[in-house]
């Protein structure tokens, strides 16, 4: 048996943009009209929209594959074709084994049914048989963490409980191919960790996972290989690390700076001791190269360095001036370069590196580019939050205080 469990071969998907007739009342006159006017028919047929073009990839057992793209890049269409809800216009898709999709994990729920009844209903929709569901029932309920309310109709559930129950069912299908669509944003932090754990188990168990997301951090964390979709076309494909680095470079290149400003930040890149890089180990040294170019003469400039977290909250900043370096002047055509060395004492997560050109005495801002580069920080330790304080456990004991106290009394006596 081949190791490849999922293969897409030159898949194309086309939608028609033209008028869609969704009632016979409109269709019948349109059809009779068309019979007398053939040209109109051809014009309507030409309004085609290719949602996917020439998509090919394969996923092996125990491998995770990521699909990255903006909204409208064709991710959802790719998902629907993968999960066999839509047929490709051209090309082939090959699936070896059971496929399950973690899309709309609560779609099969019925409001009036209890949690338990919905597990059976939704489990069946996901392709499990009764015996299988019954054997996994306890596991599913325990995973969802809503044992107390399992016999309550789901219409009384909070939206979080609802989603958690749906995900629990979907996560226990034991497929050969699992398609995941950003459902990791379900529930609170603890539940998300559980989900990540569960997906890793599924991968270790020999299933293939296709992960569709715009969350680069989770793609980088999970996936061995990935591809980037842009307007329906795969633009980069390969090892996840390289593809993500490439993708980030493409994104930042798309910036349109203010033309009227006299100074423009032309480059912000982050590198480690080996060269330009996206993934860093917590605590590692990083160098940020910043480059400015002037279009008009500007005086008394200073450069700030910004570090923000994945939600764009500023977590660190400094500037040349504040570090004690004198301001500088630039004339048109001149380029200024500087490099900051940082110790990345950051916790695990996604961080943005940016820069600001500023004149302190009259408080003028010339250019800002706060998310110029994105880095992913990982750590061998399970540390959470924003910073890494490099924890070490230097003492650990269990003492019996009562015995000690008694011993003290005895010695006193």
């Amino acid at each position: 048996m081949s190791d490849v469990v999922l293969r897409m071969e030159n898949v194309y998907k086309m939608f028609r943009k033209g008028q869609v007739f969704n009632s016979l009342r409109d269709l019948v006159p349109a059809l009779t009209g068309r019979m007398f006017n053939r040209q109109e028919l051809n014009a309507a047929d030409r309004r085609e929209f290719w949602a996917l073009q020439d998509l090919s990839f394969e996923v092996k057992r125990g491998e995770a594959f990521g699909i990255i793209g903006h909204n409208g890049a064709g991710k959802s269409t790719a998902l629907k074709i993968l999960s066999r809800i839509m047929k490709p216009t051209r090309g082939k898709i090959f699936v070896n084994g059971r496929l399950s999709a973690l899309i709309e994990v609560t779609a099969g729920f019925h409001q009036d049914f209890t949690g338990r009844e919905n597990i059976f209903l939704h489990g069946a929709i996901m392709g499990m048989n009764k015996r299988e569901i019954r054997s996994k029932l306890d596991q599913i309920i325990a995973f969802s963490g809503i044992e107390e309310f399992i016999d309550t109709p789901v219409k009384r559930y909070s939206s979080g409980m609802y989603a958690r129950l749906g995900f629990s069912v979907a996560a226990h299908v034991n497929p050969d191919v699992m398609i995941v669509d950003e459902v990791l944003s379900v529930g609170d932090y603890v539940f998300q960790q559980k989900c990540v754990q569960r997906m890793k188990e599924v991968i270790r168990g020999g299933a293939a996972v296709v992960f569709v997301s715009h969350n680069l951090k989770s793609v980088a964390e999970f996936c061995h290989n990935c591809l980037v979709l842009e307007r329906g076309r795969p633009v980069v494909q390969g090892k996840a690390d390289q593809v993500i680095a490439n993708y980030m470079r493409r994104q930042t290149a798309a910036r349109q700076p203010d033309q009227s400003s006299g100074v423009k930040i032309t480059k912000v890149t982050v590198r480690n001791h080996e060269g330009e890089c996206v993934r860093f180990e917590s605590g590692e040294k990083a160098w940020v190269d910043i480059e400015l170019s002037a279009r008009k003469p500007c005086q008394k400039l200073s450069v700030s360095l910004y570090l923000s977290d994945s939600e764009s909250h500023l977590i660190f900043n400094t500037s040349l001036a504040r570090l004690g370096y004198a301001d500088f002047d630039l004339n048109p055509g001149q380029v200024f370069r500087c490099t900051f060395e940082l110790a990345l004492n950051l916790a695990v997560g996604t961080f943005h590196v940016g820069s600001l050109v500023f004149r302190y005495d009259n408080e003028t801002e010339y250019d800002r580019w706060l998310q110029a580069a994105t880095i992913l920080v990982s750590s061998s330790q399970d540390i959470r939050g924003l910073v890494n304080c490099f924890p070490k456990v230097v003492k650990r004991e269990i003492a019996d205080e009562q015995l000690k106290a008694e011993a003290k009394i005895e010695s006193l006596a």
Partner: protein
Amino acid sequence: MKQEIQELYSYRDLLFAMVSRDIKIRYKQSAMGFLWAILMPTLIVGAGIIVRYGFAITSGKHLDSSDIAAVAVKSLPWAFLVSSIRFSCMSLTNNTTLVTKIYFPKEIFPLSAVMACFFDFVVAAGALVILLFFLKTGWSLYLFYVPILIIAMALLAAGISMIVSAGSLFFRDVKYIVEAVLTFAIFFTPVFYDVRMFGDKGKWLLLNPAAPILESFSDCIARQQSPDLLWLAYSLVFALVTFVAGYAFFKHLEPAFAESV
């Protein structure tokens, strides 16, 4: 086709889960519970008895208990056919999230609607047996035809259901057309009246594929006589063709479901 049926078979647990969902919802939401299943047939039987009583007065004949039995026997399968088509017509459009998001054989929707209606039919049939007992209806060996008649009716119901459910997903006015046809279909179908009342012209009425099945129900159960086997064969073939064609039609359109909604 073979592959598709195998796939449907592998999803049989889902089919039963959907049937029990439909039944549970219907009985959970109505305070009347199981009375729901006999409400529709009771109304039809009541209307039929009034119509029959009218016939008897104008023709100056006495209203026979076998006539009442015939109306009752024909009402049940008719109610089953009508409610199957009515429920399945909406079965896809009411579940668009499932249709567009999760893969499984979508014929499960119309088929489960038909099976849920069949459950109602079985409950009502229990009540009918009691009614026939009070009407002192006899029995005969022709009762062995009844399973065949039920199968023919179910095939017809399932075939039409698959066509209208897929159709109403693409054209939203299909449900209005279906509703209008179902409202008046009872006048074109021998439920309240018998085909033999029309003499030679009765054969035109028998072209309606439901008519020979209903007439055979009445012959086998209420009148203890042999059904018209030729017309019954016509209906059986018609039902089988409708089922196969409906299934093929449904499967042909299925890949486009997610795009049309």
